[in-house]
């Protein structure tokens, strides 16, 4: 089971869903915070959901306020960086670039893509954490600092 977990983690990394930050979070996990990573992920999903709502709303406005969108996305990107959501982050960056270029269509397109990546990652992480809980604390034990 631990092996399964390890390989799942590896594949997430290899496929670019997650980056080094995720590993770091796992390293932070210890006895005093045995579910640290999962907690962080939960916190991220909470915050990001709210942020996306704001972006949705902003995208509905006509004309688009690119500055505002840029700022909102900046926040979202910051959040995404907290768990190492790599693909999501990349889409965010792309979105911001479109904002600066004033490209509405580009923004919307990117945003759709971003949402897809976001959903995908969420599912994968859910599976991951489920497995992690089953595997027990050993798996996510922090490596010696």
């Amino acid at each position: 089971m631990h092996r399964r977990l390890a390989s799942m983690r590896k594949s997430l990394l290899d496929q670019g869903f997650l980056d080094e930050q995720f590993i770091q979070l796992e390293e932070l996990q210890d006895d005093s915070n045995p579910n640290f990573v999962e907690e962080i992920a939960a916190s991220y999903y909470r915050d990001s959901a709210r942020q996306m709502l704001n972006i949705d709303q902003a995208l509905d406005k006509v004309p688009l306020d690119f500055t505002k969108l840029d700022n909102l996305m900046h926040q979202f990107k910051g959040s995404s960086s907290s768990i190492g959501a790599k693909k999501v982050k990349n889409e965010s960056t792309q979105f911001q670039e479109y904002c600066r270029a004033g490209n509405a269509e580009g923004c919307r397109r990117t945003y759709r893509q971003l949402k897809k990546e976001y959903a995908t990652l969420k599912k994968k992480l859910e599976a991951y954490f489920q497995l992690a809980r089953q595997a027990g604390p050993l798996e996510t034990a922090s490596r010696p600092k």
Partner: protein
Amino acid sequence: MDSYSNGFSSPRAEAFPAGLRVLVVDDDPTWLKILEKMLKKCSYEVTTCCLAREALDLLRERKDGFDIVISDVNMPDMDGFKLLEHVGLEMDLPVIMMSVDGETSRVMKGVQHGACDYLLKPIRMKELKNIWQHVFRKKIHEVRDIEGLEAGIEEFQMMRNGISDQSDDGFSFCGGDLNSGRKRKDFDNKHDDKNFGDPSAGKRTRVVWTVDLHQKFVKAVNYMGFDKVGPKKILELMNVPWLTRENVASHLQKYRLYLSRLQKDNDLKASHGGIKQSTDATSRDQAGNIGFKNSINIKQNDAANTKFRIPGNIVIQNSNPKGHETVVSSPDLGPKGALVSDAHEIQKATSSSGVGLHYSFGTPELNAKYATLSSVLPPQFSWNQEHKPQIEQNNVFNHLSLPDLHDQIQINQETFFPNYPTPFNKERDKLTHIKVMPPHGTKCSSQNIRQQMPGENAFRLDPVQSECSTTTFNPSEPISRSAWSSKDQVIDQILVNDLDSLNGNLILGKSSALTSLNENFLACLLQEDCSPNFFELQNREFSDCNNPGLLSEPSIYLYDSLKFDYEYPCDPIEYPVMDQGLFIA
């Protein structure tokens, strides 16, 4: 691994850098959690905060309670760069900026604003592990800044030993002791360029105008006469080897601006009379009563939240429970010379120590001078004042934290008013960073003086220790004389100069200052329950007092529990000033 030891203001017991007291500010709760965890793993003592305002409050409340601040750049309530500036000015702590955006221009901006580092999110553990070097570096430079002598080297050795030997007295970072004004040797003798302060402050290293330094500066300026002196001469008089003419020149410029602003504000305020005071808290009746002239009808005791605008400097003194007056001088506020402070801030500050405003206008000489004085009360206490827009830069001056009265006053005094009887013309200009830190952490009671709303000059009085025993000083002749010689006399000076002889008479002799000053402010500052009305009245009264008489001998006792008892304390006297509602304790 958790190294949360004692309280915040307590010095670290562990060997540096363990126990480094870090304040993290980020609006992203996820990051806040992560950073907290990471920092704890570094054995640092972490405090998190999601609002910049809160962070500033915390910092002001616990002076010397933190060693370093880490802040995100983008925050909803305040721009991270702004926070950075404030922290640099008021607390002079190293600040590290963070952002997910690593664009060069942003990074540069951070550095320009004084950040000692700029980290990109996601942040690595190893980056956090090394933040202590910024604290260390700053300390070393502070040592240098202060015209050091051998002490500098000693300190340095101590520090090094502290680190290596793990002796817990190796570091006195926490208290900013290094800044205590000891003569320190500039152990790098060739270091006479403008390379002080935080080296990473950007292209131009900022000179930290410490209390001592500013005092020297003021001394020099006053010696020569404010209007006539030039940076070169000041530099000569100051005799600080590492300081350059440019440093002095820019400081002088600020100082002049500050003074002129004060003047302007005083004039403005004179007819303004709008003191809003926000009172908040419970007023503690310390020994203060506000004596007001009859004309002042301050009867209202209900505290409302209003803002005080005190033009000019108010001297507020914390009185001890024994009912001694403490003088608190409010630094000159903003361009309009308005001191805006939240009443409740004041209250808070004062409440803890029973601050009372005592002003005694004792010296007859003062009278005459008052008329022309621009009310500037030297901030006796340091409180953090947030200068608003008007005086962006000068906020520094107003950061005085109400220190333990006794010590504080001393400090202030030194800061602002060098004890020379020379007439100072514009001592008001306290644009320098006055970092007067209470010798010991002021007891921050739960009431902190909060920062004033943005846009106003707020004084933040930190709770004053109740044992502040500094009481009023008599504005004895020497002070007054010198002080009032010129229009710009800052009352502060007077007040300050005489700290020693405080006996409860604070001369608030700012004539014009008073008028414009909204004494209320002072009162409010001290009082917790400044009732807005009171102040308003005050203002009205004041508006036409250009009182020469303002500063007459009166000892107007202003107590912080501004319940506005308006009893005229000691000598009802002729407080011409009283009319203006000068609250004088």
